[in-house]
C-alpha cells in the first residue's frame, strides 16, 4: 500500500513538473489573425480599429518618408491613404510567430480609387512587412510597417 502511494505521489510530482507546450503556444502571436484584423479594418475603413492596433511608438517607412509615433502614422499614413484605396489584399511570402514579436512580409495589391471625377481607377502593387510586438498589457500592437509601392497602372 505504501509502495502504491509512493508511486502515485511521484507520478503526480512528475506530472506537475512537465512543461506544457500548449501553454507556450497560447503565449505566441497569431500573426495571420492580427494581419487579418488589420487588413479587414483597412477594407472596412474602420479608423478606430486601425488606431487601436497601432503601438504608441509605431514607425512607418515608405520610400523617402519615415513617420514615427501613433499620431503621425495615423494621420499621414492611414488618414491620408484610407480614402484612396479599396480591396486591399496581402500575399504572404514569409512570417514568424514568437512570444514577444511576430512579423509577416510579402506583396500586396489594391485598387486605387480615382482622385478626380473622370479619372481612371488604378491597380497598385508592392511589397510590405508588418512587425507586431506584444505590449505591456499583453496586447499585440503594430510596431513597424514598411511598404514599397510599384508604379500604379490604369485598371482596365
Amino acid at each position, binding site marked *: 500500500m505504501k509502495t502504491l502511494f509512493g508511486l502515485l505521489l511521484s507520478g503526480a510530482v512528475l506530472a506537475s513538473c512537465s512543461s506544457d507546450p500548449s501553454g507556450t503556444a497560447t503565449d505566441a502571436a497569431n500573426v495571420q489573425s492580427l494581419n487579418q484584423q488589420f487588413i479587414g479594418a483597412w477594407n472596412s475603413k474602420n479608423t478606430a480599429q486601425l488606431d487601436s492596433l497601432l503601438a504608441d511608438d509605431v514607425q512607418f517607412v515608405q*520610400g523617402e518618408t519615415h513617420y514615427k509615433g501613433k499620431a503621425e502614422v495615423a494621420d499621414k499614413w492611414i488618414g491620408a491613404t484610407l480614402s484612396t484605396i479599396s480591396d486591399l489584399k496581402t500575399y504572404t511570402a514569409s512570417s514568424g510567430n514568437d512570444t514577444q514579436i511576430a512579423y509577416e512580409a510579402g506583396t500586396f495589391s489594391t485598387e486605387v480609387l480615382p482622385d478626380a471625377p473622370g479619372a481612371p481607377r488604378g491597380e497598385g502593387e508592392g511589397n510590405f512587412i508588418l512587425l507586431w510586438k506584444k505590449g505591456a498589457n499583453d496586447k499585440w500592437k503594430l510596431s513597424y510597417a514598411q511598404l514599397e509601392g510599384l508604379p500604379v497602372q490604369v485598371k482596365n
Partner: protein
Amino acid sequence: MKKASYVFVLFLFLFAAVHPAAQAQQKISTQAKGTIIGAGAGALGGALINKRNRAVGGVVGGVVGAGAGYAVGKHIDNKKKERTAAANRAAAARAASERATAQRAAVARTTTTPAATQRNGTMALTGAGSQSSSTTVLADGYLPNSAYGERDTPYPTSEYRRKSW
C-alpha cells in the same frame, strides 16, 4: 667580277619590277607581283648558277622562282584580306554599338516627354483607359504622380504614381 654584275642586274630588275607596281596603286595583284619578282630572281639566279648553259638555268630558275613568288604573294594577299575583314568587323561592331546608343537615347527622350509635359501642366493623353478629357495617363498605362517634386511624399522623384497603399 662577272658574278657581281649579275647580282647588280638582279637588284636592278627587282627594283624596276616592284617600284612601278607600287606607284600604280594596286593595279597589279600581290600574287602577280610575287610571280614577277620570283620569276626574275629565279631566272637570274638560275643563269648565275648554271654556268654551262645559262639559258636552261635561267628558264628553270625563272619557273621555280615564279612559283615561289606566287606562293609568297598569295600568302601576303591572304594576310591583307584577314586584316581588312577584321577591320570591317570592328567597324560593324562600332556602328552597331552607336546605333544601340542612339536608340537608347531616343527611348529615353520618348519616355521623358510625358513628364516634361506634365511639369508644364499639360499631360500627354495615352492609354486605353483615357476616355475623358480630364483623364491623365502616362505612357504604358501608368498613372502620373500628382505629388511629383513634393519632398515630404514617399516618392517625390518618381514621375509615375507609386504610392497606392
